[in-house]
Each structure stands twice: as C-alpha cells, then as structure tokens.
C-alpha cells in the first residue's frame, strides 16, 4: 500500500532522515518508535505527502506520490497533533465539511451517509450535535480519527494517536485500528509506548537519528525484548 525507498530529508544543513525505506501493506499496522528528534514526525509527514523529501521515492496505492501527490492524498489521511477540527462546529458539521472536501471525484454529494457512519464507528453518535469546543481531549482524538475515515481512505498515518488517552482510550484505539486493518486499511503510526505498539502493530520499526535501526514483526518480540532491542539499536546508532 505504502512503499517508501531511500527517503532523505535535509533542513538546511541538518539531516532529519537518511536513507529510510519502509513498506506497509494493506491490512498491516506498522508502529514507528524512536527517541525524540529521531525523525518520526518528519517521516510521517513525508508519507502523508505533507512534506517533500529531499531524495527518495514514495509510492502509495501503486501511484508515484511525489509526482502525483493528489492521487496519494485521496487514499491517505494524516491524523497528527492538531486535531484538524473546527471548535465552533458540532461533530457532525465538522465531518460534513471534511466529507465535502475529501470526497473522491465522481462521488458527487451522494456520500451524505458517510459522516454519520464515521461518527458511529468511533462511538460519538450520541454527541453528534455538540460543539467540539465542549469535547474532552479523548473525544477530540476520536473525532479526528473519524475524519480520517472519510472519503474512502485506505491508509492512516497517525502521529502519536495514543498520547493524551487514558487506559480505556488506548484500548478503544487498539480496537479501532484492528477494525480498520481488518477492512484492508493500512496504518503507520508513531508512538512512544512499547506495550501499545506490540498490542496493536503487526510490525515495529525503530528510528534513531533519521535512520531505521530495527524492523521486525511484533510477534517476534516481547515487551522486554523490544525494550532491549530498542535500547541496543538506539545506543549503537548514537555511537556512530
């Protein structure tokens, strides 16, 4: 679904990403771990076509995303720190707006059902007509994820989706992502929590200093094993 090779990103003289390659298949969930400043956010933004890499290639759904970012944007949704929501609008109004903006060509305005369906998927139908301003952080996160489902998105790029969520929220998130990948969607997420990553993801990638230092299936790792491998890989990278 998402196929990145040799991604490099330099900001002036600083190299944020160096030769990063990543494959995410349909129905797969990949978690990206790494210390602060490792380049996780930069990588996610490049995958979501919000940022252009200095070098490398990116294919999304078989399309060259660097040459035709719009085709990629029709398939991907970025859910990042900013909620991309309008505080003065209700949950339903927000989704209706984004549904109109994200509608696929030729869909017409026939997708009137999509906003309500997305609300139901994230369990917010009870508050459909409440203004987002009144929502808690967890509810806003869920609404942001609902926005990610609009327009027939086939891949979600998430930047620390679990941050600010309590235990129940994280459990819900795991379920949500499992349902999404179960329907064939691909997920790439940056996260800090080891347990969360193992529970939810099929594969774990560790990024340090802009480079991939670990890329293993989650099944091959336990929480402690992951922590050890993480520390080792990061330390080795730092020494270089």
């Amino acid at each position, binding site marked *: 679904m998402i196929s990145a090779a040799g991604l490099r990103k330099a900001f002036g003289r600083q190299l944020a990403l160096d030769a990063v390659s990543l494959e995410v298949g349909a129905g797969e969930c990949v978690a990206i771990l790494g210390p602060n400043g490792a380049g996780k956010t930069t990588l996610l933004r490049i995958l979501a076509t919000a940022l252009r890499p200095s070098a490398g290639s990116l294919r999304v759904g078989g399309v060259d995303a660097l040459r035709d970012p719009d085709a990629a944007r029709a398939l991907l949704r970025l859910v990042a720190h900013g909620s991309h929501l309008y505080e003065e*609008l209700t949950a339903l109004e927000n989704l209706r707006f984004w549904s*109109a*903006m994200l509608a696929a060509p030729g869909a017409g305005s026939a997708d009137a059902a999509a906003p309500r369906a997305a609300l139901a998927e994230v369990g917010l139908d009870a508050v459909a007509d409440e203004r987002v301003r009144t929502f808690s952080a967890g509810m806003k996160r869920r609404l942001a994820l609902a926005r990610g489902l609009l327009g027939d998105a086939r891949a979600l790029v998430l930047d620390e989706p679990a941050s600010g969520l309590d235990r129940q929220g994280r459990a819900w998130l795991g379920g949500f992502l499992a349902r999404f990948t179960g329907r064939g969607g691909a997920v790439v997420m940056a996260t800090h929590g080891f347990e969360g990553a193992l529970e939810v993801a099929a594969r774990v990638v560790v990024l340090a200093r802009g480079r991939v230092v670990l890329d293993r299936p989650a099944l091959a790792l336990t929480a402690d094993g992951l922590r050890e491998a993480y520390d080792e890989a990061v330390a080795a990278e730092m020494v270089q």
Partner: protein
Amino acid sequence: MSRYAGRAWAVLWKDLLVERRAKESANALLFFTVTLLFLFQFALGTDRERLEAVLPGLLWLAVVLSGLLGLGRLFVAERENDCWEALRLVPGDRSAIFVGKLAANVVLLAMLEVVLVVLVALFYGVALGHALPALAVVMALGTLGLAAIGTLFGALTAPLRAREVLFPVLLLPAQVPVLLGAVSATGTALAGRPLADAQPWLGLLAAADCVYLVLGVLTFEFVLET
C-alpha cells in the same frame, strides 16, 4: 453539484457558521466600522455640505479600513488546530477553497456595508432612497474587487510572522484602483445620475474584479503549498 462548487460552498457555509457562532469577533468588527463613522464626523466637523461632498470617499474609506481588519481573519482562523494543513492535504483543485473564502468575505463585507449605508443615511441626514439600486450595483462591484485581493493576500500573509503589518502594506496599494473607481462611481450614484454616467469607472471596476478573481484562482495553489 460539481465537486468544485460543492467544496466552495462547503467552505463558505463553514466560515459563515463559525463567524456566526464566534460572535465576539464579528461584533467587534461591526463596532469598529460604526466607530469609524463617528471618527470621520469628529475629524471633519459638522459642515453638512462638506460632508456630503466627501461622502463617497468616507463610505469607501470605512469599507477599506474595515477590510484591513476583517479580510485576513478567515485564514488566521484556520491556523487553529492545524486546519490549514488539513486543507492543504485535500486532494484535487484547491482553488475552490479560495472561491469559498472570497464568497464568505464578500458576504461579511456586504453585511458591514448595509449597516454603514443605513447609519450614514441616519447620521449625516442624507436621503438615499432614490440612489439605492445604483448604489447597490457600485458597491457590489467594488466589494468584489476589494475582497478578491484581500482574500488572496490574506491567505498569503496568514502564515507569516509579520502578517499584521504586511497585510495592510501589500493590500492598500493594490486596492487603490478599486478605491478610485468605487468612489467616483458612488459619487455618480449618490447624485442621482444614471449609472451610464459612471463609465468608464464601472468598466474599470468590472475589469479589475475579473483580473483579481482570475489571479486569485490561478495562484491560490501556490500560496497554499507548504
């Protein structure tokens, strides 16, 4: 309705809805406009004839100054919650966003102008009844031009640190032609003369409106990019 029109409409609807609900800022802008009328009165004295002579100028000065305060706001509002970035990532032709924002700005300015015209008639005791249709045409043309440039430059300056200073600096010289045209044509309308007398000003306004509209639609993508 086509996807393009659907998006423009969605943006227009959303912006008007948000403005209506975030009442404080819209009200403040209205209050500013009313205050301007008082200021003009204080600055120019009570000589009725003198005021009537410069009435078109005062009217448009009030619109331009209110525009300086108001035309950029729709884009600054998108900064909250990173909605700007989400709009950038919308697939397809994003100039529909420009059209929607322009329409919203026109509606907001139009509302201010209605209040202005009513208050001007009241405060300065000017009889406007006969001139209203002609006045409406002129104000529509002028507002479209001012808003088109204002929307484009509003989008452009929104991400910059120095936007508060840069927006007026860029906007005012670009609005000079529209201002000249609108003031002259308004003078004709207020004097009760037929609109045909206001040529070539109406032609200028129409031409400027077209140019700014087309430029806005064509260059908006470049402004929206990272």
